[in-house]
């Protein structure tokens, strides 16, 4: 039974096979999974060409990552694939936790009103990849996507990388300024370069079974600890599109993966869970162990590791693909600025600082959830069961129940790129935080704030300023925009029309007052937002000179000296 037919993408004979020179390109990306494809699209949107090499010719076989967070979808919206995901995906917000034969706790993600994107959707990874491939093909002027082109060897040099590629027609060689490695958790390139990914292997096995059924279960996340149908272990049930249900059975360390993968052994487990009379078909199954591990540095000379190749987590908390997309989001604009000569290569080192922080956060949460779900000793099992027992009656114990702390957007609180922050603003939008959405009106039509931000630097100011200041403000802004061609302007209004004479200026109406509310934005106030929609700086009283300083800082202009000291194991100018 299959609800999805994997597309087959054609292999094309690379032109390099017929020339003697080694062609040079700015960026090569290895791996056409979620990270690699998203990176190519992000770079293309910022005017940078790339070659994407993949050893296969299709998208993910099996559903794999199924749970996509709001922030991930906001990133994908910037890349142009979120609408398809929202249309196809299953939106959920309710979760239930069961212990033995009873429900002990339920939670509702209760999304705030006035955001384009819901808290989570469930969607099989192959759909995400297919939509990304479609988008990459729309951008074929920038993205050279090569299927069945297998990287056999990489030379990582201080100033460039050499990539050796095998195809069915033979072998060729490329060189590039920057190599992005997105070849997954068992990254061969990481091994070839002798780099480690350190962490913890969990002594447990899990069975993923995707079953197709028409069931009456609501669209919710259900998690069982020690259920009667699978004693002493945990089980997770999640709905996907196409009437596919993901069931995740903890098996224990002693389980034989080959035996457990057999349909005749999976069926009784699923039947015991669903009840005797429920008809289902098995679509896909996999037995896995998992690791929580990351590299010490995601950068080696001019090689950048992204996604699972750089950081790998357990599935509890949906932090794998969601973490990966946030890493891509962080890296792409920096590479683009450096390649366009708008920033020095020291900016790239902040991919490490910001995303090591993000990866550590994901690893910590994922490890803690795993420890709760699979206790390592009799006493930790006792505490786990006691927490679950108390949770049924006492709200305090529910805070300890950990069936996965679901992926939250990462805030880069301590980043060398963060600029000024004035008092009196909301904490959750301090420099380093991702921007928040809000409904707005653009040219009288309903729109979303986040869709007005990203890919470029945006200065967002409140146009409801003191009218005595208008004239000088327009002059200041005009000068600033002339100086910084990478800067766009968003003016939150209703604001006087003479702002529209400014170049690269978008006038938005704060139709529901939610921009003011969420951003604490009042007349004279302003935010500088990075191309990845993270806040760079904010001021209660905006001046062009402040914006200028913050922009230089967000581009890492103060970092050059620091980065050079770090020596040759990281990227230097």
């Amino acid at each position, binding site marked *: 039974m299959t609800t999805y037919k994997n597309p087959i993408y054609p292999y094309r004979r690379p032109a390099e096979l017929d020339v003697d020179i080694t062609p040079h390109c700015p960026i090569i990306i290895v791996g056409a999974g979620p990270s690699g494809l998203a990176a190519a699209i992000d770079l293309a949107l910022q005017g940078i060409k790339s070659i994407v090499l993949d050893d296969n010719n299709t998208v993910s076989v099996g559903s794999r990552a199924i749970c996509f967070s709001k922030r991930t979808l906001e990133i994908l919206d910037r890349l142009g694939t979120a609408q398809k995901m929202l249309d196809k995906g299953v939106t959920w917000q309710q979760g239930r936790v069961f212990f033995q034969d009873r429900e002990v706790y339920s939670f509702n993600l209760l999304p705030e009103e006035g955001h384009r994107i819901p808290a989570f959707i469930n969607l099989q990874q192959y759909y995400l990849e297919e939509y990304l491939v479609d988008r990459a093909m729309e951008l074929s002027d920038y993205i050279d996507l090569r299927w069945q082109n297998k990287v056999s060897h990489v030379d990582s040099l201080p100033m460039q990388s050499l990539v050796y590629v095998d195809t069915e027609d033979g072998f060729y060689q490329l060189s590039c300024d920057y190599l992005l490695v997105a070849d997954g958790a068992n990254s061969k390139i990481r091994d070839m370069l002798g780099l480690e990914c350190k962490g913890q292997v969990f002594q447990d096995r899990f069975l993923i079974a995707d079953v197709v059924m028409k069931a009456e279960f609501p669209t919710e996340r259900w998690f069982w600890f020690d259920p009667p149908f699978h004693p002493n272990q945990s089980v997770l049930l999640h709905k996907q599109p196409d009437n596919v249900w993901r069931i995740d059975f903890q098996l224990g360390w002693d389980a034989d993966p080959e035996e457990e993968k057999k349909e005749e052994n999976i069926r009784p487990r699923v039947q015991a869970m669903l009840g005797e009379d429920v008809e289902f078909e098995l679509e896909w199954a996999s037995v896995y162990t998992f690791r929580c591990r990351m590299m010490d540095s995601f950068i080696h000379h001019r090689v950048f590791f992204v996604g699972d190749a750089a950081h790998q987590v357990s599935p509890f908390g949906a932090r794998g693909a969601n973490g990966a997309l946030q890493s891509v989001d962080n890296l792409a604009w920096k590479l683009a600025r450096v390649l366009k000569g708008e920033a020095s290569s020291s900016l790239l080192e902040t991919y490490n600082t910001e995303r090591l922080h993000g990866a550590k956060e994901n690893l910590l949460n994922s490890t803690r959830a795993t420890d709760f779900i699979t206790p390592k000793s009799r006493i930790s099992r*006792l*505490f786990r069961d*006691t927490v679950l027992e*108390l949770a049924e009656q006492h709200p305090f*114990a529910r805070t*300890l129940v950990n069936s996965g702390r679901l992926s939250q957007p990462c805030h880069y609180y301590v980043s060398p790129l963060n600029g000024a922050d004035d008092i009196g603003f909301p904490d959750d939008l301090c420099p380093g935080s991702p921007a928040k959405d809000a409904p707005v009106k653009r040219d009288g039509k309903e729109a979303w704030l986040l869709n007005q931000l990203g890919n470029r630097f945006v200065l967002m100011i409140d146009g409801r300023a003191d009218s005595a200041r208008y004239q000088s403000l327009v002059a200041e802004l005009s000068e600033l925009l002339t100086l910084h061609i990478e800067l766009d302007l968003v003016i939150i209004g209703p604001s006087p029309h003479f702002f529209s004479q400014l170049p690269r200026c978008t006038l938005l109406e704060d139709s529901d007052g939610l921009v003011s509310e969420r951003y604490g934005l009042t007349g004279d106030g302003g935010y500088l937002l990075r191309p990845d929609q993270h806040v760079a700086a904010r001021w209660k009283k905006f001046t062009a000179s402040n914006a200028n300083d913050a922009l230089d800082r967000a581009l890492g202009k103060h970092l050059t000296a620091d980065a050079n000291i770090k020596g040759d194991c990281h990227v230097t100018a």
Partner: protein
Amino acid sequence: MSRLELKPNFTQPDAFYAALTAAHRERSEPESERINARLILLLANHIGDQQVLEEALEIASQVVSAPNQSQ
């Protein structure tokens, strides 16, 4: 700056001790373990402050090195 209270703080020390042992009287060891686990979680939430809890855990964990000290 919260700190773990190590000076006497019980309103009725003898009564507390009596109640603690009474809770475990005529209980099997597995039951006693469960009672202790429930008690720790209830009291930990009441304290709440992570720093105080970590100080208490630190002192409680010193039991591990006890056999060496007795040699």
